[in-house]
């Protein structure tokens, strides 16, 4: 007998993005506790997203090249286009 509606792909996606309402989050967590295969899958997807975000976080720490800042700084001057390698 099913006591709860099954969780959907949208629920999983919302879980990964942190968009579930507290009530729905509880239902999803119960479902995951009851379904080890689904839980493993979600854990793996979560770890992938974490890895991707850590790569992204690292890139964000890089200093912005001066040529970009110069484009923004000098409002009076028309932007100078410089192509890489020329």
């Amino acid at each position, binding site marked *: 007998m099913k006591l709860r509606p099954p969780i959907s*792909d*949208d629920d999983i*996606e919302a879980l*990964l*993005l942190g968009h579930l309402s507290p009530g729905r989050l509880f239902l999803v967590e119960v479902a995951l506790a009851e379904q080890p295969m689904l839980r493993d*899958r979600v854990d*793996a*997807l979560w*770890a*992938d*997203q974490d*890895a*991707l*975000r*850590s*790569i*992204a*976080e*690292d*890139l*964000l720490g*890089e200093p*912005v*090249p001066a*040529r*970009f*800042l110069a*484009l*923004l*700084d000098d*409002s009076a001057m028309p*932007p100078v*286009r*410089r*192509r*890489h*390698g020329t």
Partner: protein
Amino acid sequence: MDTRRQALLDELPRLRRYARMLLNDPAHADDLVQDCLVRAISNLDRWQLGTNMRAWLFTIMRNVLFNDLRRARRSPFLDCGGDAMDTVPVAADQEQRMRVLDVDKAFTLLPSAHKEVFLLIAVEGLDYEEAAQVLGVPVGTVKSRLSRARSDLRATLDKSEKPQPQDDDFAERIRRGA
């Protein structure tokens, strides 16, 4: 510096990161950022204060990429050597570090349309509607692409994480001296 320019400046690191993760060539990525910036600055008065500057910039970047593609008649997503993410954070845990490297590599194998949604939503924090607007596709398409991107990334990683049966057979044959 006025408010608009400041808002643009604030988004600059993210814009650059998006280009770096989308393209596998850092030099090409920075050229793209530069072209996008030039266009954004000249259209800055069209950006409405209070709306999402990030989404606006991603839209411009996408248009620039699309024009490049048509002009050059080549895919801007082709690998040109170099790794978009060769600076991988040094994780305290070696296993975690290997994981990140694996994900980094697997991500580069995704089709560009899937990279875009993955980055816009899971990394840059746009919602479905904003991403749909940036990409010029319906929300449903954004959702299905994101789901597909996650599954494909996982499938690639599953394949590399599991031992290959053929290798086992090979090892067994070696042991038997066949």
